[in-house]
């Protein structure tokens, strides 16, 4: 034995340690699963953490209703394979019950509405820990996040008053009604995620690989033509070869032009890219400079 661990194995081990700590110390953890590559990797790490036992907590999908079909299929297949429970909290239900109001206009998005659906669902099910797949390299407010991130009874994050977090000793104590967001992928980068997907042979929905799709340009992004967006005047839909770098609400997640049809080609593309994942693809972060911080304060993922 040479006692060396690759950086991916080191990250994997750190994440598994975190996931096991949470399972051991919380009453009702839940893993937030979006069908995106980060939550797919997170779910795989949870599987590894408890194998050969089942993952001892359910997964929850905050469903905007605006997702690509491939993502739903993937979700259902994976959950069945693992034999774990899936909770779906639907933004549509929140709208139908009058708790939330759909945004209007061609730029309407359900991304913002997810926060309330998420917080309501956490409360309804009494979840006291929620695993999220956010990474610190994604965004400047996220780069400040702890692994265990305390949320008060309103689900709010207070970035100026975070708990110190030393060594690998995590403090998950909270009162009833409060909860902790857990970020086991804190130290992973987009490239690490793809290298891990390659090394581990993890399947991801095929919209992550280059394919032909009808898209149109808006605010410098390529949005897919779907039933969830209204193409405005002057916007010209055309078929291009694209792939998605992130998978979120279809109304605000952009595609990137790409010929990367295999994992290795995606790794090469990500290694060479000059634009961040969110910068390239997320309209929600473009609203203002502190858009992410503001949304996170309110309880967003």
């Amino acid at each position: 034995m040479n006692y060396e661990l690759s950086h991916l194995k080191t990250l994997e081990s750190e994440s598994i340690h975190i996931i096991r700590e949470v399972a051991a110390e919380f009453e009702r953890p839940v893993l937030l699963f979006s069908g995106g590559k980060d939550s797919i990797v997170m779910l795989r790490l949870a599987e590894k953490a408890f194998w050969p036992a089942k993952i001892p907590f359910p997964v929850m999908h905050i469903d905007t209703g605006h997702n690509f079909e491939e993502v739903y299929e993937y979700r259902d297949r994976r959950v069945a394979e693992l034999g774990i429970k899936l909770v779906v909290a639907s933004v549509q239900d929140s709208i139908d019950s009058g708790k939330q109001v759909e945004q209007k206009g061609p730029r309407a998005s359900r991304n913002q509405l997810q926060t309330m659906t998420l917080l309501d669902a956490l409360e309804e099910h009494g979840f006291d820990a929620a695993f999220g797949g956010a990474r610190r390299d994604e965004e400047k407010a996220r780069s400040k996040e702890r692994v265990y991130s305390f949320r008060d009874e309103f689900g709010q994050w207070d970035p100026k008053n975070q708990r110190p977090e030393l060594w690998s000793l995590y403090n998950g104590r909270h009162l009833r009604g409060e909860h902790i967001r857990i970020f086991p992928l804190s130290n992973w980068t987009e490239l690490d995620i793809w290298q891990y997907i390659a090394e581990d042979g993890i399947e991801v929905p095929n919209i992550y690989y280059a394919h032909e799709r009808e898209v149109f340009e808006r605010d410098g992004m390529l949005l897919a033509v779907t039933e969830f967006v209204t193409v405005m005047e002057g916007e010209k839909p055309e078929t291009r070869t694209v792939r998605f770098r992130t998978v979120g609400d279809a109304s605000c997640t952009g595609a990137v032009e790409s010929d990367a049809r295999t994992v290795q080609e995606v790794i090469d593309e990500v290694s060479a890219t000059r634009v961040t994942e969110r910068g390239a693809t997320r309209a929600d972060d473009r609203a203002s400079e502190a858009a992410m911080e503001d949304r996170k304060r309110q309880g967003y993922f």
Partner: protein
Amino acid sequence: MSELLRFATAGSVDDGKSTLIGRLLFDSKSIFEDQMASVADASERMGLEGPNLALLTDGLRAEREQGITIDVAYRYFATPKRKFIIADTPGHVQYTRNMVTGASTADLAIVLIDARKGVLEQSRRHAFIASLLRIPHLVIAVNKMDLVDYSEDRFNEIVEEFGSFAAKLDISDLTFIPLSALNGDNVVGRSEHMTWFEGSSLLHHLETVHIASDRNLIDARFPVQCVLRPHTDEFHDYRGYAGRVASGVFRAGDEVMVLPSGFTTKIKRIETFDGAVDGAFAPMSVTLLLEDEIDISRGDMICRPQNQPTSAQDIDAMVCWLADETVLSAGSKLSIKHTTRTARAIVKDVKYRLDINSLHRDEAAETLQLNEMGRVSIRTTLPLFFDEYRRSRETGSFILIDEATNATVGAGMILGET
């Protein structure tokens, strides 16, 4: 195979931390165009002349408004040799608790010193904290050499001044590098302006500093996180102990002892999802299967019969107090978390408070306030299985939690049994 190196940057305000990080990220092509554009945009709105690279790491609204770093920010970059995690830590004394958060897991710390100003109180404090946390490698980056005409004499003065202070600290590996973060001298490549300097550039040092032997591969310690019992037909009698090796090496067939029970048995198999492994070493997360069925639960420690950690309830430790609303004093009752064990603790005595600048021990002190450090004796409700912090960061550290507010209020580094 690329290794992971975690490093923390520290230093006084305006010594050039953010510029240095910006330069490392920029030269390793880890700053993206949209990030650069948003920094340029924000800088312009703030009325600055050029883009302020500090805005890359000062990500919070409050930090950008006040122009200071409040909490640690993590940044990532990679070269073909290594992958790096940078913890950019705040310099102000009131944010020390955030600094220790970023520094506690670092393999290396860079303390910046402004060549014009020399060694400041902050530089000493940060170097002291790095030594207390036992960050194995310390780099003193003497920055802004361009403003002192790249003077070898000035550099040597600072080396000497800092060296006499460092002699009082316990630092195992100390390196001085003269640089200009702004112009890039000695950051990535060797500087043409300082041919007198024979050492390597900062990046070269980061890529090559030997970290594999920093780990403790001697004292086998496995704190049990949870017990895996699948209850399926295929794995009917399966009982696996899940955890992460804290230090040392475990091999299939090894004789092991379980604390607190003291029972001994042998390791039957070491498993992971990806298959059985012959041996496990820190920081691998694995599952141990043992030959005999013995009662083991979370918080127990698996070790070797000939090499056991100290098991004690009366413990002396250096404690850094992290709370602003309460103080630590004799009689304080707290929750304590050590490895996977949680217990309650009562403070028996504050033996002394350390003046971080003079390293003077104030034995008359009876309390520790926010960001103060000192030697404290505690008694715990359960025995802890520990090693001295200097021997093992994993089994030598603990945190203290306020039972009323649930806040993390103290960080402890164990010195030994009282």
